[in-house]
């Protein structure tokens, strides 16, 4: 049994798809925060079989829910205050994300003008399709290039 200490203030991201916790760590840029972090990989889960969990002790305002929802809106976000779960946040797909993923279309203006932000908008909520604001190219998981 693995034991990880309680956190006083921060968040516990539960039900992360097994193996995806490091992606989330990078996308949320947790490496830049000066705080305690526990990454639990392949924990047993009744619901999922295996899952990852991310515990971060930090100011709760530091969490970018849009980025998290874009990566996986099925993640459970437990907000911890005074050592207990104070709130569970529901994630909804963001309408727009900025500088989270990059447009990989070589014909897009963002491919030659480096200072432009990489903005994607939610084009089809049912199928979770995001398109580049400028060239409307569909974002594909395989073209993921993390910032």
């Amino acid at each position, binding site marked *: 049994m693995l034991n990880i200490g309680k956190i006083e203030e921060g968040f516990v991201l539960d039900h992360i798809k097994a193996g995806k916790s490091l992606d989330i760590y990078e996308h949320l840029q947790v490496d830049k925060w000066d705080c305690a972090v526990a990454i639990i990989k392949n924990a047993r889960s009744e619901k999922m079989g295996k899952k990852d969990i991310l515990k971060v002790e930090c100011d709760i305002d530091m969490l970018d829910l849009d980025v998290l929802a874009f990566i996986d809106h099925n993640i459970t976000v437990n907000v911890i205050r005074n050592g207990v779960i104070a709130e569970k946040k529901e994630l909804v797909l963001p309408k727009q994300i900025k500088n989270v993923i990059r447009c990989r*279309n070589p*014909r*897009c*203006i*963002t*491919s*030659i*003008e480096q*200072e*432009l932000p990489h903005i994607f908008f939610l084009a089809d909520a049912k199928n979770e399709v995001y398109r*580049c*604001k*400028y*060239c*409307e*190219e569909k974002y594909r998981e395989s073209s993921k290039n993390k910032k």
Partner: protein
Amino acid sequence: MRHLMSPLDFTTEELDKLFDLANDIEKNPKKYAHICDDKIMATCFYEPSTRTRLSFESAMTRLGGRVIGFSDANSSSAAKGESVSDTIRVISCYADICAMRHPKEGAPMVASEKSLIPVINAGDGGHQHPTQTLTDLLTIRSMKGRLNNFTIGLCGDLKFGRTVHSLINALVRYEGIKFIFISPEELRVPDYITDMLKENNIPYEEVIRLEQVMPQLDLLYMTRVQKERFFNEEDYIRLKDFYILDTVKMELAKEDMLVLHPLPRVNEISVEVDNDPRAAYFAQAQYGVYVRMALILTLLELVD
């Protein structure tokens, strides 16, 4: 301030107003000959496109305005590495409206975000070419008297042809449209378009030979089938004649069917078809000027 990036930027009601204005310009050109006397249009063409540029220049000149600009990236500050955002800030000081063509998709949108003047997307790579779509719609509306209830055949390269994709997206907003896609297997219309049609219960058919559907069509939109799009020469030779419109095929068509083509034509429409009263592609080029005139007046807010 408004820009034009996509043909869907305007509602169908706004398009009706724009087309009414274009038709009034057609009937009363003198009324509009000096409206833009003190206005300047910048044509910023980062890649050559003589036809589109001249159409814009003709439109502005016919409104009494003047035109400045460049016609390829090498003769502009882009060659020195200036960004589109910086260029448009400067152009905003020189002109009242800008038509921009750029090989990179989304470049006119980047310009519109920093611009102090209306920006018209005059073609951005394989992405959008909204004034071509407005031209197509105005031609259909003027010559058919409506933009609803007809069967349109789109023939040729339906996979890469942005004019075709734009036109389909614009026409689905009208009632009673049936699409017939006529193309070789390799150049079929992309799935995202047929998916969109299915989702919206819009009828469509996909066929390989033009002859078999000619009698059904109210409109035929021709595009060029380029040899280099085929996987092998054998297929090209076998199929190319299916997509050449000639007088024999025209005999199968309705008496009031219209033939449209974004031009330039190479050999996909035989020159003998030009004399057929149903050939509307040169009239289409004329409507292209009227619709650009109407667009300039609308974006400059010079009409009610």
